[in-house]
């Protein structure tokens, strides 16, 4: 019998053959292991993303939710509260407001990727995670240098740990909860610092914001800040790993973007479609829905398998081919609907600059290992280690 267990290491390693079976044979599938329905076709996922009244995020959006988080963050709330919360934050992430970050991001990229000069073999994660944390700190205005509250390494390690889940218990383990608590504590110290001495940065503004005359409640400020740090570090870092993995695997694509960096923009979009790190999110039904002959009941959880919708040949011809010239409009790499990723513009900007600078130093590289160790996570997918070598 076909099974789809988002906690199994086989799914962490390669979910795509399972997605194909889901799309072709069981497009509305009940997974006993996940205790939720799984939607896998592009059109069904888009329909769900557009209908937040039916497919609610207020009970949490991560496949394996963190305790006490649902309802207090952007991704885990519904309109109208969601829209007001988002309005407070989104102006900082609009493309036109990010221009000032371009030069600082380039300086970070030169510094970080410059370390690879003369190095033959390296783990891409060492550089991508350094880059990600520094960019996020600059973008959110997290304390750095003399006022720093934690090392970059700690921020990074905890962000990566808190999104993982335990394959055996199908839940968050003590180490994942501890990382989540560490991040909340860190966020709360940042908020206190910025309240005491506000600056012109995102967290200072957010910590003092009001919605319709009510100050945001502490839980919203704390958990939204915690989530911005987690999402910034893990999603940007995870995607960079997947993009490097694709370019290291598909040598012709790598040669093309190194020779012509203008192709990076389209290559990033194709990677977002092909195998982005944000593979699956969840919703909860606010009423009964019948789809493909199955009736899903009010209160049931539903997995939206973005990674599968992105391989649906009803929408993307030859979906299993990585084609940097495809221009895959409407891909689900950033989700969609009211909850579409807040960080699309900064992610696109940071990744383009990162790979321009990386390729200046390392113009040709390949993977060392055929088999990789994949992160245990029901929501995200990226390799734990990505050893690359410049040796022929």
């Amino acid at each position, binding site marked *: 019998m076909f099974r789809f267990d988002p906690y199994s290491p086989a799914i962490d390693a390669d979910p795509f053959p399972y997605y194909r079976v889901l799309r072709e044979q069981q497009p509305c599938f009940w997974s006993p292991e996940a205790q939720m329905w799984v939607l896998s076709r592009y*059109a069904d996922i*888009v*329909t769900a993303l*557009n*209908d937040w009244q039916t497919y609610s995020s207020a009970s949490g959006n991560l496949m394996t939710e963190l305790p006490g988080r649902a309802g207090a963050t952007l991704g885990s709330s519904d309109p109208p509260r969601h*829209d007001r919360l*988002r*309005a407070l934050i*989104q102006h900082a*992430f*609009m*493309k*036109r407001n990010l221009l000032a970050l371009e030069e600082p991001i380039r300086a970070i990229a030169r510094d970080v990727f410059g370390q690879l000069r003369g190095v033959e073999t390296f783990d891409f994660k060492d550089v991508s995670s350094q880059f990600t944390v520094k960019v996020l700190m600059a973008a959110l205005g997290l304390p750095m240098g003399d006022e720093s509250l934690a090392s970059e390494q700690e921020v990074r390690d905890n962000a990566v740990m808190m999104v993982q889940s335990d394959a055996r218990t199908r839940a968050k383990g003590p180490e994942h909860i501890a990382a989540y608590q560490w991040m909340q504590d860190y966020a709360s110290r940042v908020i206190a610092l910025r309240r005491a001495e506000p600056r012109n940065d995102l967290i200072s503004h957010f910590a003092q914001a009001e919605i319709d005359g009510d100050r945001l409640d502490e839980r919203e400020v704390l958990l939204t800040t915690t989530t911005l740090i987690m999402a910034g570090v893990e999603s940007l870092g995870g995607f960079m790993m997947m993009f490097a993995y694709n370019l290291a695997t598909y040598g012709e694509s790598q040669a093309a973007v190194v020779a012509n960096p203008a192709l990076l923009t389209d290559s990033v979009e194709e990677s977002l479609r092909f195998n982005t790190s944000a593979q699956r999110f969840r919703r909860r039904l606010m009423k009964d829905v019948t789809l493909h002959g199955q009736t899903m009941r009010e209160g049931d959880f539903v997995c939206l398998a973005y990674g599968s919708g992105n391989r649906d040949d009803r*929408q993307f011809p030859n979906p299993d081919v990585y084609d940097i010239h495809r221009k895959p*409009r*409407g891909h689900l790499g*950033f*989700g*969609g*609907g*009211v*909850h*579409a*990723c*807040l960080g*699309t*513009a900064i992610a696109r900007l940071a990744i383009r600059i990162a790979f321009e600078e990386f390729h200046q130093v390392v113009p040709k590289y390949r993977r060392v290992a055929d088999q990789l160790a994949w992160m245990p996570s029901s929501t995200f997918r990226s390799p734990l280690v990505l050893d690359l070598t410049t040796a022929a």
Partner: protein
Amino acid sequence: MPHITYVEADGQATTIDLPEGWTLVQGALANNITGILAECGGSCTCVTCHCYVDEARLAELPPPAENEAAMLDFVAAERRPNSRLACQIRATAALDGLRVELPAHQE
């Protein structure tokens, strides 16, 4: 499914069947209508899905919410009384036959 017609700045018109509940952005992205960029994925944060709604039918649409009204100040092409963001217009049976024109540039 309601028929929706998108008219690109060069005059090229494309009519699609848009499932009810889908937004005009999703219809454009799924049908390769290039005059809509929708860089943010349709969450009303990038203003690259600006469109001009057929004036005769403008009143049939729910008016822009506060969020959309504020964002319309930032559209790249000329803002007109019938300017809307396509990500905020949802297909219903009543909108069958709606035509929207797309500006020459979105950013």
